[in-house]
């Protein structure tokens, strides 16, 4: 069956049968990444949900090469793949890391920082579903304040690590956040990353119905709300110049995003009197910081 003309992807670049949960952000992301990158790409995948989604050996969801690697070693393995391809003159083969937030914020951070500081010519994409979902929803340092997880059963007290701040400190040619609810923006950013050189980093909001505890059909709606509430702002940085790529026309309260999700439901039942206000303040402060960053870096 021919896809409708308005569909962005007219010819699928991944196979059917992805082993993801319903409403998972990973498979959507894989479709668009694969669509933009094309088949001449080596994907490096550390332990994460995508290790499973990409298929057990010898199956392969991607119509490209997939190198599965160790949890802490995504950026380092990609470094080796990149240099070996370069030795063989295959400069036109892209090397793309597809990692989760645990493998990016936590156990893989050292390798990520090393590769970023060396300006390895690779694209690192983090699908941030904000917890260790593959092992059953344990907190990562990407888990936001208030979210209930298996290891923070009363809700996480501290906010998520500002990973984009750490990324910013590596002087990268290109880094951005993106959302599966804003596909034109996502594709544009993937293309910009593809057409840059050096270490490029993309953080994608990752809906996760079983982990975030919402109905699968709400995935995209929640991802959209995350942007509209400034909870997951969309921005990019090209050669140090930061630009907010989506200014929500009318800012929505953060409770609009939190309320439909089971992981935050305790914030609304009275036991966390100031929980929502605190999260709202964190979100507002982050947004103010981002606006200032845009202003400061505009003259660079």
């Amino acid at each position, binding site marked *: 069956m021919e896809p409708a003309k308005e569909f962005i992807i007219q010819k699928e670049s991944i196979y059917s049968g992805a082993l993801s949960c319903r409403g998972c952000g990973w498979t959507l992301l894989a479709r668009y990444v694969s669509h933009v990158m094309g088949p001449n790409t*080596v994907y490096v995948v550390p332990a994460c949900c995508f290790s499973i989604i990409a298929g057990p050996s010898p199956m392969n969801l991607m119509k490209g090469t997939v190198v599965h690697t160790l949890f802490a070693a995504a950026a380092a393995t990609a470094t080796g793949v990149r240099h070996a391809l370069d030795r063989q003159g295959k400069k036109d083969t892209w090397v793309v890391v597809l990692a989760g937030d645990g493998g990016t914020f936590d156990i893989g951070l050292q390798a990520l920082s090393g590769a970023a500081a060396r300006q390895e010519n690779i694209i690192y994409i983090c699908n941030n579903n904000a917890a260790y979902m593959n092992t059953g929803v344990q907190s990562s340092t990407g888990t936001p304040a208030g979210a209930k997880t298996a290891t923070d059963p009363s809700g996480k007290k501290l906010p998520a690590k500002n990973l984009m701040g750490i990324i910013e400190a590596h002087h990268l040619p290109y880094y951005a956040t993106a959302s599966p609810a804003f596909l034109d923006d996502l594709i544009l950013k993937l293309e910009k990353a593809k057409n840059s050189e050096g270490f490029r980093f993309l953080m994608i909001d990752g809906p996760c119905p079983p982990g975030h505890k919402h109905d699968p059909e709400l995935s995209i709606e929640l991802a959209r709300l995350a942007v509209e509430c400034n909870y997951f702002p969309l921005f990019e940085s090209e050669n140090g110049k930061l630009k907010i790529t989506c200014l929500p026309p009318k800012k929505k309260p953060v409770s609009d995003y939190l309320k439909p999700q089971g992981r935050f439901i305790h914030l609304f039942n009275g036991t966390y009197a100031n929980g929502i206000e605190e999260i709202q303040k964190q979100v507002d402060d982050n947004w103010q910081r981002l606006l200032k960053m845009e202003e400061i870096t505009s003259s660079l």
Partner: protein
Amino acid sequence: MPESSTTEQSLTEDQVLPNNHTKKVMKGNIAAAVAAKLCRVSLVTAYPITPQTSIIEEITSMIDRGEFDATSVNMESEHSVFAALKGASLVGERVFTATSGQGLLYAHEVLHAIAHMRLPIVACNVGRPSFPWNIWADQTDSISQRDTGWIQFYCESSQEVLDTIIQSYKLAEKLQLPVMVVLDAFYLSHTSENVYLPDQSLADTFLPPAVRENNRVDTEQPRSFGGLVGPNMYDEYNRLYWEDINKVEKATNTIGREFSEIFGRTYGAVEAVNIHNNTKKILVTMATITTTARQVIDDYPDTGLLKIRLFKPFPKKSILEAMKPAGDGCTIITIDRNFTGDTEGALMQEMKRALFGKSVKISGVYAGLGGRDVSAGTIEKIINLDVNSPLTDEVTWIK
């Protein structure tokens, strides 16, 4: 940094230079670096750790001077060093690194992955212990990696380091298994010795370019590597691995002979010295302690020496063959420069395994941990341990 860390030396009258060789004086670490160049390694990842660092320094200097056509990447940890090698080897390049002690332990997880992805990587380990801080000769670091699936060679001299690395690539690429070449810290890594440096042409004759048809990233034929496997496939992968591990000992001896045809120096899985029908005791040694023992046994005609060069997989057949002339009545004394928290050292454990069912007496000593000197006097003490009573299955800690 000096222009070159090797110096040429003129030959004395009684020394004959092998064909197509130059005589040099080299530290073990420099020999390792030069060997990587002779093997036309194309990618080296590095992270500093004493006493390995001069290997990667020499390699990066040679690359910097344009003498060595390879890519060198300064990684941020040994975990990443080995992970990057894993990626590069999977793309088909011949890769190398060197590490020591804590570095090797830190890379432990990746060592397993490399072995079980069947990647023919060769790495040097300059053996040192972990804690309390100590940087001197000790084999606990590499011995504790014996279950990762890597082949392990222990070297006695700078010459052997150089020659073993060349042979290791041949072995690794033949069987698609990784090889660890172990040097003793300082006694070998930083001791200058005479070395016959082979010409590049000899290395090229012996070791053809790295060409891998299978188990390699080929973007023309996209595949996945290292994905999840179920119980049956996991078991089958390991069975195939085991089949190839069973070939290592024979291949080591074959490659050692092939090597001698081109380079004029012979190597095997083990080396027997003074083992004959009147041998009453056999000292079993690894690495540089062997050199000291060689001198000492000159004064003990009934004492033989068995040097274990291939430690993993343990070369049972070669050992039995080497001990055959001595018959069953002799006493075996193993010298372990490693402590893995057991009542007996790793070499003693492995020798017992190799000699299972044989009527020999076997005892062991721990000696030289953390670089403690194992002098000629220490070796004599070990030989004379049983002056008052015959040793059987006893372990002595030698100071």
